[in-house]
Protein backbone atom coordinates (compact mmCIF):
# COMPACT_ATOMS: atom_id res chain seq x y z
CA UNK A 1 0.00 0.00 0.00
CA UNK A 2 1.30 3.42 -0.95
CA UNK A 3 1.55 5.77 2.02
CA UNK A 4 3.26 8.78 0.42
CA UNK A 5 2.78 9.64 -3.22
CA UNK A 6 4.13 12.61 -5.12
CA UNK A 7 3.17 13.39 -8.68
CA UNK A 8 5.06 15.69 -11.05
CA UNK A 9 6.34 17.62 -8.08
CA UNK A 10 8.22 20.80 -8.90
CA UNK A 11 9.83 23.34 -6.60
CA UNK A 12 11.22 26.47 -8.13
CA UNK A 13 13.14 29.20 -6.32
CA UNK A 14 13.94 32.46 -8.07
CA UNK A 15 16.38 31.07 -10.62
CA UNK A 16 16.84 27.58 -9.27
CA UNK A 17 14.87 24.46 -10.06
CA UNK A 18 15.30 22.70 -6.70
CA UNK A 19 13.00 19.77 -7.40
CA UNK A 20 12.34 18.86 -11.01
CA UNK A 21 9.37 16.59 -11.65
CA UNK A 22 9.62 14.19 -8.74
CA UNK A 23 7.39 11.12 -8.81
CA UNK A 24 7.70 8.96 -5.73
CA UNK A 25 5.69 6.25 -4.07
CA UNK A 26 6.66 5.22 -0.56
CA UNK A 27 5.14 1.96 0.61
CA UNK A 28 3.63 1.50 4.06
CA UNK A 29 6.11 0.05 6.54
CA UNK A 30 9.24 0.49 4.46
CA UNK A 31 12.28 2.64 5.02
CA UNK A 32 12.70 4.74 1.90
CA UNK A 33 16.01 6.50 1.37
CA UNK A 34 16.57 9.77 -0.42
CA UNK A 35 20.22 9.98 -1.39
CA UNK A 36 22.05 12.74 -3.15
CA UNK A 37 24.84 15.30 -2.84
CA UNK A 38 24.32 18.71 -1.22
CA UNK A 39 21.91 20.82 -3.23
CA UNK A 40 20.32 17.78 -4.87
CA UNK A 41 16.88 18.88 -3.72
CA UNK A 42 16.35 16.34 -0.92
CA UNK A 43 15.54 18.88 1.76
CA UNK A 44 13.28 20.87 -0.58
CA UNK A 45 11.41 17.66 -1.37
CA UNK A 46 11.07 16.80 2.31
CA UNK A 47 9.90 20.31 3.17
CA UNK A 48 7.10 19.92 0.63
CA UNK A 49 6.10 16.49 1.92
CA UNK A 50 5.97 17.80 5.50
CA UNK A 51 3.67 20.64 4.34
CA UNK A 52 5.95 23.48 5.41
CA UNK A 53 6.74 24.57 1.86
CA UNK A 54 4.12 24.66 -0.89
CA UNK A 55 5.02 22.97 -4.20
CA UNK A 56 5.39 25.23 -7.21
CA UNK A 57 3.52 22.53 -9.15
CA UNK A 58 2.38 18.98 -8.62
CA UNK A 59 0.57 16.99 -5.97
CA UNK A 60 1.33 15.13 -2.77
CA UNK A 61 -0.86 12.57 -1.04
CA UNK A 62 -0.12 11.12 2.37
CA UNK A 63 -2.30 8.18 3.41
CA UNK A 64 -4.65 9.17 0.60
CA UNK A 65 -5.02 12.75 1.91
CA UNK A 66 -4.28 15.55 -0.50
CA UNK A 67 -1.71 17.72 1.27
CA UNK A 68 -3.18 20.91 -0.22
CA UNK A 69 -6.39 20.44 1.75
CA UNK A 70 -5.39 18.15 4.64
CA UNK A 71 -2.07 19.55 5.84
CA UNK A 72 -3.10 19.53 9.51
CA UNK A 73 -4.30 15.93 9.50
CA UNK A 74 -1.15 14.81 7.73
CA UNK A 75 1.20 16.72 10.03
CA UNK A 76 -0.52 15.09 13.03
CA UNK A 77 0.75 11.65 11.97
CA UNK A 78 4.26 12.69 10.91
CA UNK A 79 7.33 12.57 13.11
CA UNK A 80 9.76 15.08 11.66
CA UNK A 81 13.43 14.98 12.63
CA UNK A 82 15.06 18.01 11.03
CA UNK A 83 18.67 18.30 9.99
CA UNK A 84 19.08 21.59 11.80
CA UNK A 85 18.69 21.63 15.58
CA UNK A 86 15.49 23.52 16.38
CA UNK A 87 15.07 22.43 19.98
CA UNK A 88 13.58 25.14 22.18
CA UNK A 89 16.52 26.66 24.10
CA UNK A 90 14.17 28.51 26.47
CA UNK A 91 12.97 25.19 27.88
CA UNK A 92 14.53 22.18 29.61
CA UNK A 93 14.85 18.77 27.95
CA UNK A 94 11.64 17.45 29.49
CA UNK A 95 9.75 20.70 28.84
CA UNK A 96 10.83 20.53 25.21
CA UNK A 97 9.00 17.23 24.91
CA UNK A 98 5.90 18.13 26.93
CA UNK A 99 5.57 21.46 25.12
CA UNK A 100 5.92 19.70 21.78
CA UNK A 101 3.30 17.15 22.84
CA UNK A 102 0.95 20.06 23.56
CA UNK A 103 1.24 21.21 19.94
CA UNK A 104 -0.23 17.80 19.09
CA UNK A 105 -2.98 18.32 21.64
CA UNK A 106 -1.79 15.42 23.78
CA UNK A 107 -3.19 15.69 27.35
CA UNK A 108 -0.76 16.63 30.09
CA UNK A 109 -0.43 13.28 31.89
CA UNK A 110 -0.12 11.35 28.68
CA UNK A 111 2.46 13.86 27.43
CA UNK A 112 4.55 13.36 30.54
CA UNK A 113 4.30 9.58 30.29
CA UNK A 114 5.34 9.57 26.62
CA UNK A 115 8.13 12.07 27.25
CA UNK A 116 9.70 9.83 29.87
CA UNK A 117 9.27 6.86 27.55
CA UNK A 118 11.08 8.45 24.61
CA UNK A 119 13.76 9.85 26.93
CA UNK A 120 14.54 6.38 28.19
CA UNK A 121 14.44 5.04 24.63
CA UNK A 122 17.29 7.40 23.73
CA UNK A 123 19.02 7.17 27.10
CA UNK A 124 18.39 10.78 28.08
CA UNK A 125 16.41 10.32 31.31
CA UNK A 126 19.28 11.67 33.44
CA UNK A 127 19.30 14.84 31.36
CA UNK A 128 15.59 15.58 31.70
CA UNK A 129 16.09 18.74 33.75
CA UNK A 130 19.09 20.01 31.78
CA UNK A 131 18.98 23.03 29.54
CA UNK A 132 19.48 22.51 25.84
CA UNK A 133 22.77 24.45 25.86
CA UNK A 134 24.17 21.91 28.35
CA UNK A 135 23.68 19.02 25.92
CA UNK A 136 26.37 17.70 23.61
CA UNK A 137 25.74 17.61 19.87
CA UNK A 138 24.98 13.92 20.04
CA UNK A 139 22.49 14.35 22.87
CA UNK A 140 20.73 17.10 20.93
CA UNK A 141 20.28 14.81 17.94
CA UNK A 142 18.97 12.02 20.16
CA UNK A 143 16.54 14.48 21.72
CA UNK A 144 15.39 15.58 18.26
CA UNK A 145 14.69 11.92 17.46
CA UNK A 146 12.89 11.46 20.77
CA UNK A 147 10.81 14.56 20.07
CA UNK A 148 9.90 13.17 16.65
CA UNK A 149 8.27 10.16 18.35
CA UNK A 150 6.16 12.10 20.87
CA UNK A 151 3.00 11.90 18.73
CA UNK A 152 3.52 8.16 17.99
CA UNK A 153 3.87 8.93 14.27
CA UNK A 154 2.81 6.59 11.47
CA UNK A 155 5.53 8.07 9.26
CA UNK A 156 8.92 9.39 10.31
CA UNK A 157 10.64 11.96 8.15
CA UNK A 158 14.33 11.87 8.97
CA UNK A 159 16.74 14.44 7.55
CA UNK A 160 20.30 13.25 8.21
CA UNK A 161 19.43 11.73 11.60
CA UNK A 162 22.96 10.59 12.47
CA UNK A 163 24.99 13.50 11.16
CA UNK A 164 27.71 14.42 13.66
CA UNK A 165 27.13 11.40 15.89
CA UNK A 166 29.91 9.23 17.28
CA UNK A 167 29.81 5.56 16.22
CA UNK A 168 28.17 4.45 19.49
CA UNK A 169 25.33 6.93 19.16
CA UNK A 170 25.01 6.22 15.45
CA UNK A 171 24.49 2.50 16.07
CA UNK A 172 22.02 3.26 18.84
CA UNK A 173 19.99 5.38 16.41
CA UNK A 174 20.18 2.77 13.66
CA UNK A 175 19.05 0.13 16.12
CA UNK A 176 16.07 2.23 17.26
CA UNK A 177 15.06 3.04 13.70
CA UNK A 178 15.17 -0.64 12.77
CA UNK A 179 13.02 -1.44 15.80
CA UNK A 180 10.52 1.26 14.86
CA UNK A 181 10.30 -0.12 11.36
CA UNK A 182 9.55 -3.57 12.71
CA UNK A 183 6.68 -1.94 14.62
CA UNK A 184 5.30 -0.74 11.31
CA UNK A 185 6.51 2.88 11.28
CA UNK A 186 7.20 4.00 7.73
CA UNK A 187 10.41 5.98 7.34
CA UNK A 188 11.50 8.50 4.77
CA UNK A 189 15.21 8.93 5.32
CA UNK A 190 17.35 11.63 3.78
CA UNK A 191 21.01 10.80 4.03
CA UNK A 192 24.42 11.21 2.49
CA UNK A 193 25.79 8.32 4.49
CA UNK A 194 25.71 5.40 2.07
CA UNK A 195 26.44 2.88 4.78
CA UNK A 196 23.40 4.16 6.65
CA UNK A 197 21.26 3.83 3.54
CA UNK A 198 22.47 0.26 2.99
CA UNK A 199 21.81 -0.72 6.59
CA UNK A 200 18.40 0.93 6.97
CA UNK A 201 16.70 1.37 3.62
CA UNK A 202 14.49 -1.13 1.85
CA UNK A 203 14.47 1.09 -1.21
CA UNK A 204 16.33 4.24 -2.14
CA UNK A 205 16.11 6.98 -4.72
CA UNK A 206 19.21 8.81 -5.86
CA UNK A 207 18.67 12.50 -6.50
CA UNK A 208 20.90 14.88 -8.39
CA UNK A 209 20.23 18.47 -9.46
CA UNK A 210 16.59 18.22 -8.53
CA UNK A 211 15.88 15.02 -10.46
CA UNK A 212 15.41 11.48 -9.26
CA UNK A 213 18.01 9.59 -11.28
CA UNK A 214 17.28 6.08 -10.16
CA UNK A 215 15.25 4.09 -7.69
CA UNK A 216 15.48 0.58 -6.33
CA UNK A 217 16.62 -1.64 -3.47
CA UNK A 218 20.21 -0.99 -2.37
CA UNK A 219 21.19 -4.43 -3.71
CA UNK A 220 19.33 -3.87 -6.94
CA UNK A 221 20.96 -0.49 -7.48
CA UNK A 222 24.38 -1.94 -6.82
CA UNK A 223 24.03 -4.84 -9.22
CA UNK A 224 22.46 -2.63 -11.88
CA UNK A 225 25.07 0.14 -11.86
CA UNK A 226 28.31 -1.43 -10.64
CA UNK A 227 27.90 -5.20 -10.30
CA UNK A 228 28.63 -7.15 -7.14
CA UNK A 229 32.37 -6.66 -7.13
CA UNK A 230 34.53 -3.68 -7.85
CA UNK A 231 38.17 -3.84 -8.89
CA UNK A 232 40.37 -0.94 -7.92
CA UNK A 233 43.58 -0.44 -9.79
CA UNK A 234 46.33 1.94 -8.78
CA UNK A 235 48.40 3.04 -11.73
CA UNK A 236 51.31 5.39 -12.02
CA UNK A 237 50.85 8.49 -14.13
CA UNK A 238 53.02 6.90 -16.81
CA UNK A 239 50.90 3.79 -17.11
CA UNK A 240 47.57 5.47 -16.86
CA UNK A 241 46.84 6.31 -20.48
CA UNK A 242 48.03 2.93 -21.65
CA UNK A 243 45.82 1.05 -19.19
CA UNK A 244 42.80 3.21 -19.98
CA UNK A 245 43.28 2.54 -23.69
CA UNK A 246 43.42 -1.20 -23.09
CA UNK A 247 40.28 -1.13 -20.91
CA UNK A 248 38.47 0.71 -23.61
CA UNK A 249 39.49 -1.76 -26.28
CA UNK A 250 38.28 -4.64 -24.12
CA UNK A 251 34.96 -2.96 -23.62
CA UNK A 252 35.23 -2.88 -19.83
CA UNK A 253 32.92 -0.77 -17.73
CA UNK A 254 35.28 1.46 -15.76
CA UNK A 255 35.84 4.88 -14.34
CA UNK A 256 39.21 6.60 -14.03
CA UNK A 257 39.57 9.12 -11.24
CA UNK A 258 43.11 10.42 -11.06
CA UNK A 259 45.45 7.48 -10.76
CA UNK A 260 42.80 5.17 -9.44
CA UNK A 261 40.70 3.18 -11.84
CA UNK A 262 37.50 1.46 -10.77
CA UNK A 263 36.27 -1.41 -12.90
CA UNK A 264 32.67 -2.51 -12.62
CA UNK A 265 30.60 -5.48 -13.71
CA UNK A 266 33.58 -7.82 -13.71
CA UNK A 267 32.33 -11.37 -13.27
CA UNK A 268 35.70 -13.13 -13.25
CA UNK A 269 39.08 -11.59 -12.67
CA UNK A 270 40.66 -13.16 -15.79
CA UNK A 271 39.71 -10.19 -17.84
CA UNK A 272 41.95 -7.97 -15.74
CA UNK A 273 45.02 -10.19 -15.58
CA UNK A 274 47.98 -8.99 -17.56
CA UNK A 275 46.79 -5.45 -17.61
CA UNK A 276 49.13 -4.22 -14.93
CA UNK A 277 52.71 -4.98 -14.16
CA UNK A 278 52.35 -5.67 -10.46
CA UNK A 279 49.51 -7.75 -8.99
CA UNK A 280 49.54 -5.66 -5.78
CA UNK A 281 48.17 -2.81 -7.85
CA UNK A 282 44.94 -4.77 -8.14
CA UNK A 283 42.39 -4.87 -5.36
CA UNK A 284 39.02 -6.51 -5.37
CA UNK A 285 36.24 -5.51 -2.94
CA UNK A 286 32.46 -5.86 -2.64
CA UNK A 287 30.57 -3.09 -4.41
CA UNK A 288 28.73 -0.57 -2.24
CA UNK A 289 26.00 1.99 -2.63
CA UNK A 290 28.74 4.60 -2.56
CA UNK A 291 30.01 3.29 -5.90
CA UNK A 292 26.52 3.70 -7.30
CA UNK A 293 26.34 7.19 -5.84
CA UNK A 294 29.56 8.25 -7.54
CA UNK A 295 28.58 6.67 -10.84
CA UNK A 296 25.27 8.50 -10.92
CA UNK A 297 26.19 11.86 -9.45
CA UNK A 298 29.81 12.19 -10.52
CA UNK A 299 32.97 12.71 -8.52
CA UNK A 300 33.22 16.46 -8.73
CA UNK A 301 31.70 18.78 -6.14
CA UNK A 302 28.06 19.47 -6.88
CA UNK A 303 28.14 23.08 -5.68
Amino acid at each position, binding site marked *: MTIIKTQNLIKK*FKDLLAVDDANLEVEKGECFGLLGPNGAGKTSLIRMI*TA*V*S*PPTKGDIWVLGNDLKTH*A*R*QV*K*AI*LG*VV*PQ*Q*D*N*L*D*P*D*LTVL*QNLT*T*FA*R*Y*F*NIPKNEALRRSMEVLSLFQLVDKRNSHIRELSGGMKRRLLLARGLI*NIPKIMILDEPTIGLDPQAKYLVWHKLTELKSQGVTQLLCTQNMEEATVLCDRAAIMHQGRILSLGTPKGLISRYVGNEVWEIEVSSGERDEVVKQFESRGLDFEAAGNKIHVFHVEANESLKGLVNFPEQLRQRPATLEDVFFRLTGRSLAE
Partner: protein
Amino acid sequence: MKPFSWRFIRVWQRNRDVFFKLWHSEAPGFVAEPIIILLAMGLGLGAYVGMVDGQKYIEFIAPGIIASYAMFSASFECTYGSFVRMEYQKTYDAIIATPLNVEDVIAGEIFWGATRSFMTGIVILVIAAAFQLVHSPWAVVIPVLAFLEGIMFASIAMLFTSVVPSIYSFNYYFTLFITPMFFFSGVFFPLSSFPETVQTLSWIAPLTPVVHLTRALINGELYPNLLWALALIIVLTALFFSISLVTMRRRLTI
Protein backbone atom coordinates in the same frame (compact mmCIF):
# COMPACT_ATOMS: atom_id res chain seq x y z
CA MET B 1 -5.30 35.28 3.93
CA LYS B 2 -5.62 31.91 5.62
CA PRO B 3 -7.46 31.96 8.96
CA PHE B 4 -5.86 30.96 12.24
CA SER B 5 -7.39 28.34 14.50
CA TRP B 6 -7.84 27.82 18.26
CA ARG B 7 -4.49 26.01 18.17
CA PHE B 8 -2.79 29.41 18.49
CA ILE B 9 -3.30 28.92 22.22
CA ARG B 10 -0.46 26.34 22.19
CA VAL B 11 2.03 29.01 21.14
CA TRP B 12 0.58 31.41 23.70
CA GLN B 13 1.05 28.73 26.38
CA ARG B 14 4.63 28.11 25.29
CA ASN B 15 5.46 31.80 25.61
CA ARG B 16 3.65 32.07 28.94
CA ASP B 17 5.63 29.14 30.36
CA VAL B 18 8.92 30.67 29.25
CA PHE B 19 7.94 34.10 30.58
CA PHE B 20 7.09 32.84 34.05
CA LYS B 21 10.38 30.95 34.13
CA LEU B 22 12.36 34.08 33.27
CA TRP B 23 10.07 36.89 34.46
CA HIS B 24 12.64 38.32 36.88
CA SER B 25 14.85 39.34 33.95
CA GLU B 26 11.94 41.19 32.31
CA ALA B 27 10.50 42.86 35.39
CA PRO B 28 12.90 45.85 35.61
CA GLY B 29 11.97 47.04 32.13
CA PHE B 30 8.25 46.88 32.55
CA VAL B 31 7.78 47.65 36.24
CA ALA B 32 10.71 49.71 37.49
CA GLU B 33 11.13 51.90 34.41
CA PRO B 34 7.55 53.24 34.23
CA ILE B 35 7.62 53.98 37.96
CA ILE B 36 10.85 55.92 37.56
CA ILE B 37 9.46 57.88 34.61
CA LEU B 38 6.20 58.56 36.42
CA LEU B 39 7.94 59.86 39.53
CA ALA B 40 10.81 61.69 37.85
CA MET B 41 8.64 63.46 35.30
CA GLY B 42 5.52 63.72 37.42
CA LEU B 43 7.10 65.01 40.60
CA GLY B 44 10.36 66.47 39.27
CA LEU B 45 9.20 68.18 36.09
CA GLY B 46 5.71 68.54 37.53
CA ALA B 47 7.04 70.94 40.16
CA TYR B 48 7.84 73.41 37.35
CA VAL B 49 4.89 72.69 35.08
CA GLY B 50 2.08 73.19 37.54
CA MET B 51 -1.40 72.38 36.28
CA VAL B 52 -2.18 70.88 32.86
CA ASP B 53 -5.80 70.81 31.67
CA GLY B 54 -6.83 71.42 35.26
CA GLN B 55 -4.79 68.50 36.64
CA LYS B 56 -1.55 68.08 38.50
CA TYR B 57 1.17 67.15 36.01
CA ILE B 58 1.66 63.67 37.49
CA GLU B 59 -2.08 63.05 37.12
CA PHE B 60 -1.94 64.22 33.53
CA ILE B 61 0.88 61.89 32.50
CA ALA B 62 -0.19 58.72 34.41
CA PRO B 63 -2.65 57.42 31.76
CA GLY B 64 -0.14 58.12 28.97
CA ILE B 65 2.54 56.16 30.84
CA ILE B 66 0.17 53.19 31.05
CA ALA B 67 -0.61 53.37 27.33
CA SER B 68 3.05 53.87 26.33
CA TYR B 69 4.45 51.01 28.37
CA ALA B 70 1.68 48.72 27.16
CA MET B 71 2.84 49.69 23.66
CA PHE B 72 6.50 49.01 24.54
CA SER B 73 5.65 45.56 25.97
CA ALA B 74 3.93 44.30 22.84
CA SER B 75 6.47 45.99 20.56
CA PHE B 76 9.54 44.45 22.19
CA GLU B 77 7.90 41.06 22.42
CA CYS B 78 6.98 40.91 18.73
CA THR B 79 10.15 42.48 17.33
CA TYR B 80 13.25 41.28 19.19
CA GLY B 81 11.46 38.44 20.96
CA SER B 82 9.73 37.06 17.89
CA PHE B 83 12.76 37.58 15.64
CA VAL B 84 15.01 35.59 17.98
CA ARG B 85 12.49 32.75 18.13
CA MET B 86 12.01 32.81 14.36
CA GLU B 87 15.56 33.24 13.07
CA TYR B 88 18.00 32.15 15.79
CA GLN B 89 16.08 29.50 17.67
CA LYS B 90 14.10 28.21 14.65
CA THR B 91 11.20 27.73 17.04
CA TYR B 92 8.64 28.58 14.34
CA ASP B 93 10.09 25.95 12.01
CA ALA B 94 9.74 23.34 14.73
CA ILE B 95 6.15 24.32 15.48
CA ILE B 96 4.89 24.45 11.90
CA ALA B 97 6.00 20.83 11.46
CA THR B 98 3.24 19.97 13.99
CA PRO B 99 -0.52 20.38 13.34
CA LEU B 100 -0.13 24.14 13.84
CA ASN B 101 0.18 26.29 10.73
CA VAL B 102 1.95 29.62 10.24
CA GLU B 103 -1.21 31.60 11.04
CA ASP B 104 -1.65 29.80 14.37
CA VAL B 105 1.95 30.57 15.31
CA ILE B 106 1.71 34.26 14.42
CA ALA B 107 -1.68 34.69 16.11
CA GLY B 108 -0.23 33.02 19.22
CA GLU B 109 2.72 35.40 19.17
CA ILE B 110 0.48 38.46 18.72
CA PHE B 111 -1.94 37.43 21.47
CA TRP B 112 1.01 36.76 23.72
CA GLY B 113 2.38 40.23 22.94
CA ALA B 114 -1.06 41.62 23.81
CA THR B 115 -1.02 39.68 27.06
CA ARG B 116 2.26 41.37 27.94
CA SER B 117 0.56 44.74 27.34
CA PHE B 118 -2.35 43.62 29.52
CA MET B 119 0.00 42.67 32.38
CA THR B 120 1.96 45.90 32.05
CA GLY B 121 -1.32 47.84 32.03
CA ILE B 122 -2.44 46.21 35.27
CA VAL B 123 0.89 46.72 37.05
CA ILE B 124 1.16 50.44 36.24
CA LEU B 125 -2.52 50.99 36.93
CA VAL B 126 -2.11 49.53 40.40
CA ILE B 127 0.93 51.73 41.01
CA ALA B 128 -0.98 54.79 39.77
CA ALA B 129 -3.83 53.89 42.11
CA ALA B 130 -1.37 53.61 44.99
CA PHE B 131 -0.26 57.19 44.23
CA GLN B 132 -3.95 58.19 44.18
CA LEU B 133 -3.88 59.10 40.50
CA VAL B 134 -6.96 57.07 39.57
CA HIS B 135 -10.22 58.96 39.86
CA SER B 136 -12.91 56.73 38.38
CA PRO B 137 -14.10 53.12 38.58
CA TRP B 138 -14.03 53.17 34.76
CA ALA B 139 -10.30 52.59 35.19
CA VAL B 140 -10.95 48.84 35.53
CA VAL B 141 -11.54 48.83 31.76
CA ILE B 142 -7.99 50.07 31.15
CA PRO B 143 -6.32 46.60 31.12
CA VAL B 144 -8.86 45.47 28.52
CA LEU B 145 -8.01 48.50 26.42
CA ALA B 146 -4.31 47.72 26.95
CA PHE B 147 -4.94 44.21 25.60
CA LEU B 148 -6.60 45.59 22.47
CA GLU B 149 -3.80 48.13 22.12
CA GLY B 150 -1.39 45.22 22.53
CA ILE B 151 -2.95 43.31 19.63
CA MET B 152 -2.56 46.43 17.50
CA PHE B 153 1.09 47.11 18.32
CA ALA B 154 2.02 43.41 18.29
CA SER B 155 0.52 43.15 14.79
CA ILE B 156 2.39 46.21 13.53
CA ALA B 157 5.59 44.83 15.06
CA MET B 158 4.97 41.41 13.53
CA LEU B 159 4.50 42.98 10.11
CA PHE B 160 7.84 44.73 10.48
CA THR B 161 9.48 41.53 11.77
CA SER B 162 8.20 39.64 8.72
CA VAL B 163 10.16 41.86 6.34
CA VAL B 164 13.40 42.75 8.14
CA PRO B 165 16.65 41.13 7.03
CA SER B 166 18.40 41.29 10.41
CA ILE B 167 17.85 42.01 14.06
CA TYR B 168 19.64 45.37 13.72
CA SER B 169 16.77 46.66 11.59
CA PHE B 170 14.68 47.03 14.74
CA ASN B 171 16.74 50.09 15.66
CA TYR B 172 14.85 51.89 12.88
CA TYR B 173 11.53 50.65 14.17
CA PHE B 174 12.11 52.02 17.64
CA THR B 175 13.95 55.22 16.73
CA LEU B 176 11.67 56.29 13.91
CA PHE B 177 8.30 54.90 14.95
CA ILE B 178 7.94 53.92 18.61
CA THR B 179 9.98 56.64 20.33
CA PRO B 180 8.44 59.55 18.38
CA MET B 181 5.01 58.25 19.32
CA PHE B 182 6.03 58.25 22.96
CA PHE B 183 6.59 62.03 22.70
CA PHE B 184 3.99 63.13 20.16
CA SER B 185 0.86 61.24 21.17
CA GLY B 186 -0.28 63.43 24.04
CA VAL B 187 1.49 61.50 26.80
CA PHE B 188 3.58 64.34 28.29
CA PHE B 189 1.77 67.42 26.98
CA PRO B 190 -1.66 68.08 25.49
CA LEU B 191 -1.72 67.83 21.71
CA SER B 192 -3.14 71.36 21.64
CA SER B 193 0.28 72.72 22.59
CA PHE B 194 1.67 71.61 19.19
CA PRO B 195 1.32 73.55 15.93
CA GLU B 196 -1.65 72.53 13.80
CA THR B 197 0.32 70.26 11.42
CA VAL B 198 1.94 68.30 14.24
CA GLN B 199 -1.48 67.85 15.81
CA THR B 200 -2.86 66.35 12.62
CA LEU B 201 0.19 64.12 12.27
CA SER B 202 -0.09 62.87 15.80
CA TRP B 203 -3.61 61.61 15.08
CA ILE B 204 -2.06 59.26 12.52
CA ALA B 205 0.05 57.76 15.29
CA PRO B 206 -1.80 54.70 16.63
CA LEU B 207 -0.82 55.55 20.20
CA THR B 208 -2.79 58.82 20.23
CA PRO B 209 -6.31 57.35 20.39
CA VAL B 210 -5.16 54.92 23.09
CA VAL B 211 -3.79 57.75 25.24
CA HIS B 212 -7.04 59.70 24.89
CA LEU B 213 -9.16 56.70 25.80
CA THR B 214 -6.97 55.76 28.77
CA ARG B 215 -7.07 59.32 30.07
CA ALA B 216 -10.85 59.43 29.75
CA LEU B 217 -11.23 56.13 31.61
CA ILE B 218 -8.89 57.05 34.45
CA ASN B 219 -10.71 60.37 34.99
CA GLY B 220 -14.18 59.02 34.29
CA GLU B 221 -14.79 61.74 31.69
CA LEU B 222 -16.39 59.83 28.85
CA TYR B 223 -17.83 61.59 25.81
CA PRO B 224 -19.23 60.24 22.50
CA ASN B 225 -16.29 61.34 20.37
CA LEU B 226 -14.15 58.72 22.10
CA LEU B 227 -16.00 56.09 20.06
CA TRP B 228 -14.07 57.40 17.04
CA ALA B 229 -10.82 56.75 18.86
CA LEU B 230 -11.99 53.22 19.68
CA ALA B 231 -13.11 52.63 16.10
CA LEU B 232 -9.72 53.80 14.81
CA ILE B 233 -7.92 51.34 17.10
CA ILE B 234 -10.16 48.47 16.02
CA VAL B 235 -9.72 49.22 12.31
CA LEU B 236 -5.92 49.50 12.58
CA THR B 237 -5.78 46.30 14.64
CA ALA B 238 -7.82 44.27 12.14
CA LEU B 239 -5.81 45.67 9.25
CA PHE B 240 -2.32 45.04 10.62
CA PHE B 241 -3.28 41.69 12.13
CA SER B 242 -4.42 40.38 8.74
CA ILE B 243 -1.46 41.78 6.84
CA SER B 244 1.05 40.32 9.27
CA LEU B 245 -0.44 36.83 8.84
CA VAL B 246 0.01 37.12 5.09
CA THR B 247 3.53 38.52 5.13
CA MET B 248 4.67 36.00 7.74
CA ARG B 249 3.34 33.10 5.69
CA ARG B 250 5.30 34.47 2.76
CA ARG B 251 8.47 34.62 4.84
CA LEU B 252 8.17 31.23 6.51
CA THR B 253 6.88 28.92 3.79
CA ILE B 254 9.25 29.49 0.91
